């Protein structure tokens, strides 16, 4: 039994003593007031809640607090302070890829993981990599374009 769950959140060490079965999504939004992580379904279907845990995107609505001991977590609040975010965000901006924006924190984190795993991805790889993130507004075309553009402009960032 772990009484204290320790993990790293956006480069800060956190000790958590609450319920181990609580959802990471609720911890982030309700306790930490980090509302950049969105909730679109609470069932692992939409990707609006995704965060990066140890380098991989995970839907935080399906993550129990008990399972993140020792993990390193990045949310949009942390990621948006990085140079990679700057580049990615500029690429999204250049094709007006953000409409209502509700999917976007998750979308940007998934895009980051695609580029992190493959700095020069093909269109198919990008589309597959975004398959867990629903967007009802854009039709995905502009998002895919933006990720490819970031990969082009990113010069050594990924």
């Amino acid at each position, binding site marked *: 039994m772990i009484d204290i769950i320790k993990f790293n959140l956006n480069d800060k060490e956190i000790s958590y003593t609450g319920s181990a079965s609580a959802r990471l999504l609720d911890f982030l939004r309700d306790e930490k007031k980090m509302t950049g992580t969105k909730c679109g379904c609470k069932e692992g279907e*939409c990707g609006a809640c995704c965060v990066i845990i140890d380098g991989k995107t995970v839907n935080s609505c399906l993550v129990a607090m008990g399972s993140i001991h020792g993990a390193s977590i990045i949310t949009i609040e942390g990621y948006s302070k990085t140079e990679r975010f700057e580049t990615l965000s500029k690429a999204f901006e250049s094709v*007006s890829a*953000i409409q209502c924006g509700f*999917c976007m924190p998750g979308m940007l984190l998934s895009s980051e993981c695609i580029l992190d795993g493959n700095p020069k991805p093909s269109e198919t790889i990008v*589309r597959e990599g975004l*398959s867990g993130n*629903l967007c009802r*507004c854009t039709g995905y075309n502009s*998002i895919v374009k933006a990720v490819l553009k970031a990969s082009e402009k990113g010069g050594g960032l990924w």
Partner: protein
Amino acid sequence: MNNISSSIPKIDHLEKANGSAIYVCDYDTDDMLHGRLLRSSIAKGIVRNVRIPELPDGYFYVDSTDIPGKNQVHMIQDDTPVFTNDVQFIGEPIGMLVGPDLKKVGSLLSETQVEYENLAPVFDARGSEDIFFDFNIEKGDVEAAFAHADRIIEGSFETGLQEHIYLETNGMIGKFQDGKMIIHGSLQCPYYVHGALVDATALTHENVIVKQDVTGGGFGGKEDFPSALACQVAIAAFKADGKSVRVVFEREEDIIATSKRHPSYCDYKLSVKDGKVTGMVSDIIVDAGAYTTMSMVVLQRATIGSSGVYNIENIKVRGRAPKTNTVPNGAFRGFGGPQVFFAIEMMMTHVAKELGVDSAEFKLKHIVQQGDLTSTSGKYHFPVPLKQMAAKVLKESDYFKKQKQYKNQTGRYRKGIGFSLVFHGAGFTGNGERDIIKAVAHLKKLKDGRVEILTANTDMGQGLATTFTKIVSKTLDLPPEKIIFSLPDTSRVPNSGPTVASRSIMVVGELLRRAAIRLKDEWIEGEEQLIEQRYEHPSFMIAFDAVNFKGDAYPTYSWQATVVETTIDTLTGGISIDNVWGSFDVGTPIDESIVIGQMEGGIIQSLGYAIMEKCTIYNGAINNKKLCDYIIPTAPDFPNMNVYLYVDEYPEGPFGAKGAGEMSHVGGAPAVLDAIQNALGTKLSKIPFMPEDVLDILREEKLDD
């Protein structure tokens, strides 16, 4: 292209990218109360008794007895109750439980019991005797056309429910303080909500304030529905001792209880003489659900659009919206258009097949031209560029060659290519702008030379904050940074009308342009100035008679030509989209990237509507209420889309712009179904068309062999 079209960074880009934008679900709720709605579990009956468990301190319940004003949500007609005692559909709100802890509210709700007197519900729209609306159009002499026809060809078409799945569910926060009711949340039409609140709360206009929060998608789903939720939250707020009451729906609740696209049943008869369609009789039924909400206007658009883009001289159309005991169907991008354009487009391909001619050529031979009469005997006042637009997509897709090549395939994978032509009437139907909306827009110049846009129009993702800013900035010759656009607040902005019907740019954008011209003329350095601009009805319009459906239903139209190429896997029934080509005329795009985004987003919704999104109702209960069984398109589902913008400038719109947002949802479904027809060598007439439907057809084909 006009240089206003070159794109600028969207003004709300960064806050949405970095997650700092505050949507209604993002407010700190530590000092708020949470509300959850008690919903009916039966489709029709009288509420006899509600047994609420004992409520802890700080928790309370509200229902129809707590409403100071009318127990009606003011929309077009006011038949939707705020809280019901006379249940008309499963999921209808009866009351609301409120308290400081959301989980506790949930558990109290699950212990609450409702006793009903059950009544017999009606679920089949075609069998319903309760008809909310019944519209008729007659033009020319249909009897004569049919009497002289070489052939009369019939067809019946069906379309299903479609759920909006805006990624942010509905939510509203309300607070009653110092005699004022302040409501904010996810919504498209602040003054619709305001009007409904005035009636339900019995407060004065000034004492009701509605503000839009950053809104995570609408597509029509936040046009009428938020008025109901706002009233419910307001009634609870009266009892909350000055605290805010918040309701944010879970996804399942949003799917069960909010409006959807009307399912439709359309029967057509076309008369043909010498290879040309001479007459049309159509019977359009859209299932309204339990209350009227937006059905009147959806049905108007459907009835008027049922002859599609074709010049058919003699027509007789009947459109009806029967009541059923299901969740009310309301506004959804395209607003009755996707249903009837699907029907007429398929019908035209069926007729072509019967006549043994190429369906694309057959369609092109019938399209309307400038000066022709519309279905309502109004006029197409402006050029109709469909021929050029069709030529573009037919050529780029190599349509004619492929279409022939794809006939009579036999292997496991069969390809198909399909084509559709559609329009969308820009703005409100008929005289709505002149007689009902009477839009007013303000421009306020501040002392420091910045200019604020004051309108009631909302940005729900479609980019209005940026496009309105561009219109004003360009007209005043000021950089966009000098223009202020805030989300609307009814205590600050005039009523420029709702954000619906692809009207915002064309109508309100033009008011802003005119206001900006005046401001430029009257500009006084260092002084505060306010310019008010009021709507003027275009003088060329033939007044619309909404009883007999005669006259100009719309000032102008946006046009779309679409080609879709598919591959069918005959083993699994899988339908994949290989390529999409779309040409769109929405007048001058106020921002090219934004318009392209609207076109792409709409196409993918219409492809989802056609081949993925299936929502069924059994005994009044929705079966597909989660995102795992109501499937919308994901990034790998569809390929890159080829979008071409054709510009025919509309002289009454700002810089030549007309309506854009909705049309792209109209053309995709008939094009993809036509492609599947091509692949399978058959005639199709219903959507959603799913893999199991492919397999059914192949089975029949085998039986026929």
